[in-house]
């Protein structure tokens, strides 16, 4: 006899829980003893109507999903035209794969897209390199015994996650512009005569962008690990202590290995998002000095598409980016399935 799940297949793989549910439902129907044929038929018809009625309730929402997520895919066709909004698609010239050829043949275009890809990958890899920081943060915060201290640190360090990038830029501007706090302090201390340029410069842009990302995301990123630590079986620690393990050995041989599965999932997801840095952060920090090194793919698409008005070229690049991202995600998911026996999406 099958074990009936107490709750309706929470978590777990939806496909399997769904299958189990259907089987359970079928068994129940078949085995229910006191039903006449007619009443069963009536019930099934009513059930069918009911099931369709339920679907009709969600149709308006499915239309929204279609319009905002699926229908725009049709817009990829703009990449085959020299699209001018004033002329409409029918009035625009069909140019075939011209934009894609331009991407790999025109030397200026190749140089530009090469720099953009370099920025994108550099910032993504720096992001991946720093993705271990929230884990370390959690492991060490867990060593703090006073709950009030732990909670205060958590509250204060997660706050930056909830402000917009505009506000982060505002903070960066107040602290690091030529008339900002840091330059004022250095100046008052007599350490500098000319203000240091932290923002209006093309130096270390990848690094500063990564650091702002860390500032914003460190505390929040640690929460998931703190919860995972709370879930570690305490007997592991106790038996290790009996074997004479010290604080750092407990971290090294128990806590960190126990957190690895969570870390790997997040790591794989960030690999899948290699090309998706988003544009907001880079848009607000962008200026005439750092434009060359701050332009990541998402920002580049915005800059040439909306600001520069080459809609077709921007569509072509965006399309390539989307396709590569989906392929990356599927690959990473396949790897995860082979390694962990469980998919990540």
């Amino acid at each position, binding site marked *: 006899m099958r074990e009936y799940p107490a709750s309706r297949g929470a978590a777990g793989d939806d496909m399997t829980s769904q299958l189990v549910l259907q089987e359970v439902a079928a068994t129940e129907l078949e085995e229910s003893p006191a039903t006449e044929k007619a009443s069963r038929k009536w019930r099934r018809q009513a059930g069918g109507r009911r099931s369709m009625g339920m679907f009709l309730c969600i149709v308006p929402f499915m239309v929204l999903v279609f319009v905002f997520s699926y229908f725009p895919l049709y817009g990829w066709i703009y990449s085959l035209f020299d699209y001018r909004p004033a002329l409409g698609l029918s009035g625009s010239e069909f140019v075939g794969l011209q934009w894609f050829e331009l991407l790999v043949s025109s030397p200026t275009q190749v140089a530009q897209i090469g720099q953009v890809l370099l920025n994108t990958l550099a910032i993504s890899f720096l992001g991946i390199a720093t993705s271990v920081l929230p884990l370390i943060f959690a492991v060490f915060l867990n060593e703090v015994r006073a709950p009030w201290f732990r909670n205060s640190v958590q509250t204060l360090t997660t706050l930056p996650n909830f402000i917009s990038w505009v506000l982060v830029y505002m903070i960066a501007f107040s602290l690091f512009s030529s008339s900002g706090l840091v330059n004022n302090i250095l100046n008052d201390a007599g350490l500098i005569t000319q203000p240091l340029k932290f923002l209006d410069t093309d130096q270390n842009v990848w690094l500063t962008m990564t650091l702002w990302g860390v500032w914003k995301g460190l505390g929040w990123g640690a929460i998931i690990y703190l919860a995972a630590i709370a879930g570690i079986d305490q007997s592991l620690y106790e038996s290790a202590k009996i074997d004479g393990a010290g604080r750092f050995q407990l971290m090294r041989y128990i806590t960190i290995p126990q957190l690895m599965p969570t870390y790997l999932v997040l790591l794989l997801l960030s690999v899948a998002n290699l090309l998706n840095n988003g544009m907001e952060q880079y848009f607000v920090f962008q200026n005439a000095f750092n434009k060359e090194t701050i332009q990541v793919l998402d920002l580049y698409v915005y800059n040439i598409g909306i600001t520069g008005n080459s809609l077709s070229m921007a569509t072509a690049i*965006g399309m390539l980016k989307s396709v590569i991202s989906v392929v990356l995600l599927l690959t990473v998911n396949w790897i995860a399935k082979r390694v962990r026996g469980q998919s990540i999406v």
Partner: protein
Amino acid sequence: MSNTTFGVRRRGGGDIIFAITNYSVFIALAFLCAYPFYFLIINSISANDVSALGQVRWLPVDVHLENYAQVLQLNGLPMAAIVSIARTAIGTLAAVLASAFLGFMFSQSKMWGRQFWYRFVIITMYFSAGLIPVFIVMKTLGLTNNFWVYVVPFIVQPFFIILVKTYVEAMPESLQEAAEMDGANILQIFFRIFLPNMTPILATVAIFSAVAQWNSFQDTLIYVTDQSLYTLQYLLYMFINQANSLAQAAQNSGGNLSGIITAATTQTPTSIRMTVSVLVVLPIIFIYPLFQRFFVKGIMLGAVKG
């Protein structure tokens, strides 16, 4: 190990050094995260001639609230505040109701094509047609320069639906069975039985949605050129870049209003930037500590799904 004697844990020298280092590092990190907010606040209430020179660092100087009164009269600011509040309220309400309903419906195994439609929604988290195609669709639908561009695209949100569905699936089945016995239809079951019992997860959804709505900047940038639809975030971005001319404008209008202009209350680029920033961040600072547990719950439930 020698620091356990007769079952009493004694702190060795190494432990104390570790604890001091550990606490110090966390105090430093907390300071780095909190001080910028404090800096904005003290600068927005200090004498403007002092703050303009960057001399307000630890404590406010000659506290006054004149900046808030003057900044609120800046051209466009009251309207932007209304737009930001409206999009947050309406957008959150719509997202919460839709997520509650869809999360509930997708837990109904009897629904026609449930699995297919659920995947139809969830899969949209993993691809995007790209900026330009979406922009053209918005334009075609008449959503550019339209308030509803802040609401309609955010009604169906896969992540929220996963949260609600997971929650509903953990509720006892008897709830629904009893209602079905009484002959209630699916909408009655949703509104009368499930909606009132979902509040904890809906609070989580609401708080995530509200923060995202309040902080949203990109949609104004891409879809809106009409100044009456600017949000506070967008206005702040503009203020950072144009604070000089704004200070002039505020001086002119402020002079007419109060009649007294002193160096301490004359608007400067710094005072305007700081004051508007505080207006933008204050709701978050107040709301966040109160609702922190909901945020944490949300991320944990989301993590279960991976």
